[in-house]
């Protein structure tokens, strides 16, 4: 009983000692299934009860069907045994949950975060703090009601996450702050800020008692998703509802739905067969469900700068917010589907070294950082993601990379002879190098701009096949960690490509050597 429980009761969690999770954890993790099973039993029982009370004694399990187990129990006077059995199972479950909760502990030291769990099969998972790629706090609807939250520490690697589910809501925020502080390489500030956190908690826990508890829950529930104290307000990017709805309507999904509907209509008109209509209702439900879930999951979307990196938050009922420390973004892609061009909307995706199971906004993978935004939003988000690397020139360059039709605009574009390879986009297809990053621009119809910071390039490849050699052009690719963005550019002049290859190779080395983002506050 020496292990303290992780609630926001003023105990510092990142002190290197072992702690336990929120006591409601078993209920929140497996509770829903449990409640559902209980519900099914009760519903069944109600039918039998109605029959017993309103139709007199039950007669032998109905007509010819197999006997209902509940009826069987009632007939043979086994009710006591059954109740005992249910009680026994319940007790066993509770005991099991309790033991598993007791055995599930975590600690955060100066170097790592470690979780021990499991009763029969013990698991022990450790993550190094300087390899943290992001910290995610997820609050599913049910957990929010209990004032609990799930904290996920993403470490570099495929599905390499250390999950702490569940913690007290306040404790999760506090813990993230402390982990980021430890990971950032600061040592001096630690004591002071920890005291401040403690004081805040003491002040918060002044309203005790049942009424105070409910009040606090309601307060937590209705509070804005983004805490105004933690961020610089000028840096916030939000998505308004109209644009969100518009971006959904003008999506590829809508196009395919319409094509499908038209095809079905033609089929019916041609053949006079109406059986296709049977599928319409489920299809309609599916389509509406898709739009509604996308919409609700992207509501209250915000991106903001904090001292420990970018904070991305979203969600109405179930909320989620993630902090990406500086230097964890390996490649950025800004793209614009043709349908979005009249509205001037863009979409930003990125590559990162960890891939979390937790979905990002609108049910998309959490590699989407801006579901939809205009040019201003894009500029702001890029400034957040490449801190310190965007000055006046770079901003202008980025903007030209997005909207320019090509020509002599600071980018080295494909030569005229490469037009056979890039029919529409050869004027625009090109690259530009900046002290901080390299830009690849392609696509005249589906506009794309890929940005790779030099410090994150893993290796650089130059290649060409027989056709490319005949046209005297080359293909260049910057290898980054796996993700939706592939940083490559084809059909560029071979001389330009060779020069770029050499420049990128040397910049990658120097940038990696001078990069200190894994301890971003240490300098």
């Amino acid at each position, binding site marked *: 009983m020496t292990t303290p429980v992780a609630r926001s009761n003023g105990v510092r969690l990142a002190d290197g000692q072992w702690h336990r999770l929120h006591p409601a954890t078993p209920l929140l993790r497996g509770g829903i299934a449990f409640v559902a099973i209980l519900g099914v039993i009760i519903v069944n029982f109600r039918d039998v009860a109605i029959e017993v009370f309103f139709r007199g004694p039950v007669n032998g399990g109905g007509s010819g069907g197999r006997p209902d187990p509940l009826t069987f129990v009632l007939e043979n006077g086994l009710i006591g045994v059954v109740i005992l059995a249910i009680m026994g199972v319940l007790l066993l479950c509770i005991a099991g949950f309790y033991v598993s909760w007791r055995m599930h502990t975590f600690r955060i030291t100066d170097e790592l975060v470690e979780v021990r769990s499991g009763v029969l099969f013990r698991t022990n998972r450790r993550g190094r703090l300087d390899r943290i790629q992001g910290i995610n706090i997820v609050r599913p609807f049910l957990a929010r009601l209990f004032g609990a939250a799930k904290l996920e520490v993403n470490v570099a690697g495929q599905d390499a996450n250390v999950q702490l589910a569940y913690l007290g809501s306040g404790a999760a925020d506090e813990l993230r702050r402390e982990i980021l502080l430890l990971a950032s390489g600061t040592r001096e500030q630690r004591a002071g800020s920890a005291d401040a956190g403690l004081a805040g908690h003491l002040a918060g826990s002044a309203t005790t008692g049942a009424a105070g508890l409910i009040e606090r829950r309601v307060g937590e529930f209705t509070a804005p998703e983004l805490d105004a104290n933690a961020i610089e307000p000028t840096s916030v990017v939000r998505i308004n509802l109209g644009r969100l709805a518009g971006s959904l309507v003008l999506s590829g999904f809508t196009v395919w739905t319409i094509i499908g509907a038209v095809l079905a209509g033609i089929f019916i008109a041609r053949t006079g067969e109406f059986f296709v209509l049977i599928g319409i209702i489920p299809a309609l439900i599916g389509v509406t469900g898709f739009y509604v879930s996308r919409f609700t999951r992207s509501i209250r979307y915000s991106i903001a700068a904090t001292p420990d990196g970018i904070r991305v938050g979203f969600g109405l009922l179930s909320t989620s917010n993630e902090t990406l420390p500086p230097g964890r973004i390996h490649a950025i892609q800004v793209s614009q589907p043709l349908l979005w061009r009249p509205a001037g909307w863009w979409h930003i995706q990125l590559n990162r070294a960890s891939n979390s199971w937790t979905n990002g906004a609108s049910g998309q993978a959490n590699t989407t950082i801006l579901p939809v935004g205009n040019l201003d939003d894009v500029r702001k988000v890029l400034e957040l993601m490449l801190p310190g690397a965007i000055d006046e020139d770079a901003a202008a360059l980025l903007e030209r990379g997005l909207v320019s039709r090509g020509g002599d605009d600071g980018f080295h574009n494909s030569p005229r002879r490469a037009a056979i390879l890039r029919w529409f986009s050869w004027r625009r297809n090109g690259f530009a190098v900046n002290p901080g990053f390299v830009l690849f621009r392609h696509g005249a119809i589906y506009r794309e701009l890929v940005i790779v910071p030099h410090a994150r390039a893993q*290796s650089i*490849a*130059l*290649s060409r096949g027989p056709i490319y050699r005949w046209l005297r052009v080359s293909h260049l690719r910057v*290898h980054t960690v796996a993700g939706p963005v592939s940083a490559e550019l084809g059909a560029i002049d071979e001389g330009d490509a060779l020069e770029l290859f050499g420049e*990128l190779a040397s910049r990658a080395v120097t940038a990696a050597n001078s990069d200190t983002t894994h301890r971003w506050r240490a300098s």
Partner: protein
Amino acid sequence: MTTNTESDDQQAEAVAVTPGATPGWQHVSGKYIAVDLVGWLISAVIMVGLTSLVPFLTGLTPLWALPAILAVVFLVNILFTPRRVRAIAYQLRDDDLLFRRGLMFERIVAVPYGRMQLVDINRGPLDRALGLSELKFVTAAAATGVVIPGLPAAVAEELRDALVELAESRRAGL
């Protein structure tokens, strides 16, 4: 033959220990041509055999076109094997490893030493018989794909040790 490979070994060893000291491309051992040839021959026999099974059994003459085309493609590949193997080369520069291969489809990759996460040595049965090894570099990006085949075993091990040490001393974050 033996004297030739020995001099090859020594040359490569010198490079492996001091990166950047000797500029220029290092080529892989000439014995790798044999390994590559055998590999191509085996796959040629299997592919041509399988595709000619159908016309052989059915007696449809036009279907012989497929094995014939395959045979020509494999023949060209086999004829070009020596040149292709000689085109494989690497260079240890001050800060990164340059690797190049391919005749028709050329590819050059630059990997900064600090980006190497691990170095693998693989040896197939033929490699072992001829005393060769294959060196594979892994970075955080799966697409890097730098595999140097046909290195004499001793060179490969020395190169690996040198590269691991370099990667350790220039270790950068991800």
